[in-house]
């Protein structure tokens, strides 16, 4: 079936990959970006007056619970949540059940994504077999099946010898290793940040130095292996400082941050609401400020959600027992706008770069750009649309979102994937 051509008019086109920030029209035809500027006729015209038109947003850190945890989220429901949040591409982590550690597992994700027909879903393969941190996984074969990066996320690759081998191995395929930086021995049975609040609340703490030490060690290992290394969901000031120094020494180390680590502190756990239980945990005000500063000065490259769905039965437990994680695909853009745009810390081009071209580069995807000939993945953002996060309207199967009820200042109102409109905001595609 032919894809109808689309003309998007009167929008502010922001494409950091081309250093573009301009009022212009955009023509999409046959699933590709045809032209920017003054464009001809099209089958459908969308008036983007007052809206930002940018390359489709990319979330390089999500968890879809398929296979094994389909009651919380499937690839279909997860990718529906993604397009509702303005994302045209996501990279999903391998901590499924069984984990994504073979060629067949990677292929399965692509097939499910194809069936779902929502956004692009790129599987991240496990770095070690079973994510057990001992033996290398069949990364070569997973690359052949289309794995875009490797990680044991959820778990940390804790043994230095194994991490070094994994890093050396992955250099053969021009893929990066993404590390969940948490020394397991220092994390212990912790359920929130290991600081004053945990002591007061009587909850076991996850030591913040567990993140710092792994980041420090891994930077040395990555330098030795000459491997591209990406720190997942950075959360501590110390880690940000290490990343700043590493980036000054070379381009091989990148990182990402989640909205909750820019907006919430450990104090939010005081009500023992498990929706605030997340790993890495909510940290201190100083950590939040350091992470914000990291985004501002480019130390932190990418903005991600770490979308971690859990069904009600799973999450409706006392804080100590509940699983870690919060969903985020449908709220992260608004939350990032609240944390970074609203206080004037960064501008829209910077934010969009961190959600388009930067993750595309880390994952070596030919995405994140509107240069003519690119895939027609486009997001329309209403930059001044105030709205209230309401989990009952979410496409995700899960509801574990601590930001339910929060007002945020911007919203993705249309998501176009491969030239097809996959999401239109129910309240209208307008300012």
């Amino acid at each position, binding site marked *: 079936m032919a894809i109808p051509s689309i003309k998007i008019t009167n929008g502010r086109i922001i494409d950091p990959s081309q250093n573009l920030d301009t009022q212009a029209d955009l023509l999409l035809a046959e699933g590709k970006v045809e032209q920017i500027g003054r464009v001809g006729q099209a089958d459908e015209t969308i008036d983007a007056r007052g809206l930002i038109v940018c390359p489709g947003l990319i979330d390089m850190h999500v968890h879809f619970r398929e296979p094994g945890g389909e009651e919380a989220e499937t690839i279909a429901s997860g990718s529906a949540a993604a397009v509702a949040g303005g994302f045209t591409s996501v990279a999903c982590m391998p901590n499924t059940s069984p984990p994504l550690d073979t060629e067949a597992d990677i292929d399965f994700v692509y097939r499910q994504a194809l069936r779902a027909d929502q956004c692009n879903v790129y599987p991240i393969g496990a770095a070690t*077999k079973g994510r057990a941190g*001992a*033996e*290398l*996984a*069949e*990364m*070569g*074969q997973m690359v*052949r099946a289309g794995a875009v990066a490797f990680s044991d996320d959820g778990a940390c690759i804790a043994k230095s*010898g*194994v991490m070094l*081998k994994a890093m*050396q*191995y992955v*250099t*053969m395929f021009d893929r990066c290793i993404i590390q969940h930086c948490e020394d397991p021995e220092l994390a212990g049975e912790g359920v929130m940040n290991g600081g004053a609040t945990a002591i007061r609340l009587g909850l076991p703490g996850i030591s913040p130095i567990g993140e710092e030490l792994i980041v420090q060690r891994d930077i040395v290992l990555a330098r030795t292996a000459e491997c591209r290394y990406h720190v997942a969901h950075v959360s501590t000031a110390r880690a940000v400082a290490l990343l700043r120094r590493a980036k000054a020494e070379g381009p091989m180390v990148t990182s990402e941050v989640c909205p909750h680590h820019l907006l919430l502190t450990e104090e939010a756990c005081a009500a023992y609401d498990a929706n605030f239980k997340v790993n890495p945990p909510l940290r201190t005000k100083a950590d939040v400020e350091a992470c914000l500063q990291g985004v501002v000065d480019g130390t932190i490259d990418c903005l991600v959600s770490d979308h971690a769905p859990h069904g009600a039965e799973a999450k409706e437990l006392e804080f100590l027992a509940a699983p870690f994680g919060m969903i985020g695909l449908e709220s992260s853009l608004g939350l990032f706008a609240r944390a970074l745009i609203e206080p004037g810390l960064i501008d829209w081009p910077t934010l969009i770069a961190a959600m388009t071209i930067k993750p595309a580069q880390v994952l070596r995807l030919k995405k994140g750009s509107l240069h003519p000939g690119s895939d027609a993945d486009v997001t329309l953002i209403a930059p001044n649309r105030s709205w209230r996060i309401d989990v009952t309207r979410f496409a995700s199967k899960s509801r574990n979102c601590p930001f339910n009820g929060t007002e945020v200042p911007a919203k993705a109102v249309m998501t176009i994937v491969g030239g097809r409109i996959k999401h239109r905001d129910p309240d209208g595609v307008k300012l």
Partner: protein
Amino acid sequence: MSKEKAFVWRRRHLLGLEDLSRAELEHILDTATGFKEVSTRSIKKVPALRGKVVVNLFFEDSTRTRTSFALAASRLSADVLEFSARTSSVSKGETLRDTARNIEAMGVDLVVVRHPAAGAPHYLTRCIEPSVVNAGDGQHEHPTQGLLDLFTIREMKGRIEGLKVAIVGDIAHSRVARSDLFGLRKLGAEVTLIGPATLLPKAFREMGASLSCDLDDVIGRVDVVNMLRVQNERITSSVFPSVQEYSRLFGLTRERLARAKPDLLVMHPGPINRGVEIASDVADGAQSAILRQVSNGLAVRMAVLFLLNQASSKAA
């Protein structure tokens, strides 16, 4: 044209190829050519080492190298003693030095030693008088394997100078790769070492090799490929995920062979893991020199024993 002065072999030991000069290497190969002819006679013996005793002092399992040395010594009319660590007093805790000196005390002339510790043969030369031949010391060198590889290449290609040779496998732990590299570089070949990044130390560049993790990229450009056996223990450790992945990335399949030069020489030190580092039909195919390597091994070892004995006799 004046007659060239005949080369005189002076070494009493063969511990490795690293220190051998180009002239020495060529002399061994030339000598081996002569001994190869012996194996075609109906009486496959020459009296060169008659009355001499050669002992195979093997502290590691081996069938082909050990048999090859035994047969080589026997064809030179030497008496052969077999020593195996497993069934000896080494299992009672006797040290290498004591073992060697005890055997020496019985009166031997040449000691062929294979040992898991790199440098063991070197150490032996300081403990005992007889000539020492390194039949493989840990991950260090396997000089007679290197020599038979050089011999085979020279025989099949007519030369070594300027040839492009690829060695594929677990380079980090391979004594064959090291001996081959030393010998090939000395004789003017270009060597590319290929293997998984976890088994390909960058330091090999300083030893004159190019490195690559991409067999498909290199295979079309080389004249000779030497496929090394990958140990199963290595494959399932943390350096490599699986046999299947190894063979997909680094195995010499018929498909890869088709993309190589039509006269690519295929070599393997043996024993081969069919279907892992080399496809069955490639190992048995027309371009394979694997069995020829074994025959050449015999001639090369005869040459080595002969030359070392000659040097020892002169010294006496």
